[in-house]
């Protein structure tokens, strides 16, 4: 091959700069445009109610997307999050409704249920990580297994039946509000903050980016690659667990067939639109949040102006394709 160039700077600076800007700030720009558009043409847009509606819908996606972002940052993907949400959302009511073990104190039962549900999802996430790190199975395939089987497990647990409940100690997660803002928004904010902190201030964060950025180099630098992979999939599972609880709390109902359906796509979309490379090495968490908000806003804009919901799916598809293409084009220059 050619001799290594030592003093020449990388070429293509200007095109790369342009594409990089689009990729990093495209979501922000789009969001800004949409916001302006809505303020202009959508009635009642600037109201607390609108904010609440949108926040409620987007919170669970963001919670899952945070975990997804970490997995993608290591060069992987997690398709099982929707199914893990279902398992969590089905397990919790079973516990605090006393179907698994009878506990007198409702508050205690609720606490136990929350811990158990999230813990279960985390454990299953760990299983995903084990398949990927121990056997070297492609993440798509490894997480596909729980994608298929996970929802089935949830359905089997309740025989496909809808569980409704009236447990205010639990329902506040989804129905309560603080200062007019839904509780789950605070949950989401807490998770995002925790993830941001972890990525910036801990060893773990650096290692995640290193593993995804150049796995061979990470191995040669003696980084704990296997452990990192196990950890991110476990975290993704935990996030899915939390999201599952939020979903069932919103309606005080748990439907194993519906919880988390399609959430994995929404999470991946948020990450892609937010500017993190799907190939790994980057975790723009705030971008992901923005990505989710942008997609939600697109959907809302269309809905509020009479465009059928189905059309927003097509638009969403187009946006994701564009975001990914920009990311790849930028990387290639």
């Amino acid at each position, binding site marked *: 091959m050619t001799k290594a160039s030592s003093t020449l700077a990388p070429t293509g600076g200007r095109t790369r700069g342009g594409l990089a800007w689009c990729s990093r700030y495209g979501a922000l720009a789009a969001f800004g445009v949409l916001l302006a558009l809505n303020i202009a043409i959508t009635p009642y847009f600037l109201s607390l109610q609108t904010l609440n509606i949108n926040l409620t819908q987007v919170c669970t996606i963001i919670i899952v997307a945070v975990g997804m972002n970490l997995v993608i940052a290591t060069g992987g993907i997690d398709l099982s999050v929707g199914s893990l949400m279902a398992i969590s959302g089905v397990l919790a009511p079973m516990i605090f409704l006393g179907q698994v073990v009878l506990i007198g104190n409702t508050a205690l039962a609720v606490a136990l249920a929350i811990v158990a549900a999230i813990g279960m999802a985390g454990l299953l996430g760990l299983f995903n990580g084990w398949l990927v790190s121990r*056997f070297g199975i492609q993440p798509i395939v490894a997480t596909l297994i729980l994608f298929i089987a996970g929802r*089935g497990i949830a359905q089997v647990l309740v025989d496909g039946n809808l569980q409704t409940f009236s447990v205010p100690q639990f329902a506040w997660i989804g129905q309560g509000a603080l200062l007019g803002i839904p509780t789950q928004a605070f949950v989401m904010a807490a998770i995002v903050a925790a993830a941001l902190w972890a990525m910036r201030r801990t060893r773990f964060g650096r290692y995640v980016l290193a593993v995804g950025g150049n796995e061979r180099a990470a191995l040669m630098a003696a980084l704990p690659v296997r452990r990192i992979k196990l950890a991110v999939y476990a975290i993704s599972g935990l996030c899915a667990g939390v999201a599952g609880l939020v979903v069932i709390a919103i309606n005080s109902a748990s439907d194993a067939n519906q919880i988390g359906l399609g959430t994995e796509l929404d999470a991946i979309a948020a990450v892609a639109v937010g500017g993190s490379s799907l190939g790994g090495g980057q975790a723009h968490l705030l971008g992901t949040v923005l990505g989710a908000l942008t997609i939600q806003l697109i959907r809302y804009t269309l809905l509020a102006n009479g465009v059928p919901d189905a059309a927003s799916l097509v638009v969403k598809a187009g946006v994701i394709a564009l975001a990914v293409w920009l990311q790849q084009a930028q990387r290639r220059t």
Partner: protein
Amino acid sequence: MEASRLERLFKHGATLALVALIAFGAIRYDNFLSLYNVMSVCRTNAMFALVSLGMCFVIMTGGIDLSVGAVAALASVAAAKASPLGVTGGLAAGVAVGFAAGVVNGLLVTRARLLPFITTLVTMLAANGCALLLAGNQSVAVSYTSGFTGIGQGDLGVFPVPALIVVALYALGSLILHRTSAGRSVLATGGGEEASRLMGLRPDATKFAVYAASGALAGLAGVLLAAGSGAGQPTEGVGWELFAIASVVIGGTLLTGGAGSVLATLAGVLLMGTLFTVLNFENGLGIISLSAYWQSVIRGLMLLAVVVLQATVMQRRHRHAT
């Protein structure tokens, strides 16, 4: 060598398991091997079989097609809308729509160089949306007077028409794979894209072709869905791609591409379909009651076993080589 014994297990594992399962069912349940039951299984699984055939070729090139379910749903709506024109009309509409989706996939993969995973995820969303738009968010009834339903509900002699279509296409697929340069190209592309390019084969053209074919087959599956159930259903098709991937992998095709068998895929499809029947019969015996939901769990377990086995073989081979 242990590796080759495991490989032979892959190749024939699905078939063996299928035979074992059928034997189990025949012994345990009455009427398991009845003509009605066998044909019924064939008819129900015809759609999945078609989708799996397309998926098999795509996976052999080292790719994946997550859009097949949504495309089938879209095609079913298109076919239902065109059903007043008879079998030809409905068929043409469905297959054309599927083919178009496949072409989009092929272009995005070979021209825009997007990863197959993301590409087909995007087309899946888009197809889903288009299906709902086209159908107006509801099922679209087919015309019962034009003879369209014959393709889904009719019989030729004792065989359901869908089953015959499947058999014909699988035979064709197997022939193409084993006896044509194009078929070998599919394997070469998955087994070594750069090498196949240097050998004078054209991996990009091959990839484009398999995605287009996968789309067309999904379209045909959608036609059968509409004709068989009497309505074009925009929300059906969820999970079809999983069924297909599971069938293909269980049939022994390598997920990384480069090796596979069309007939083994059929065995994988039948295995998964027979499992459902066995569950029904088992419930009918009244001893245990396993809900249909157990299917996905069992499918997941089967996929797990095969995937872990494949990975172990790969790892061992890698260690052997270096």
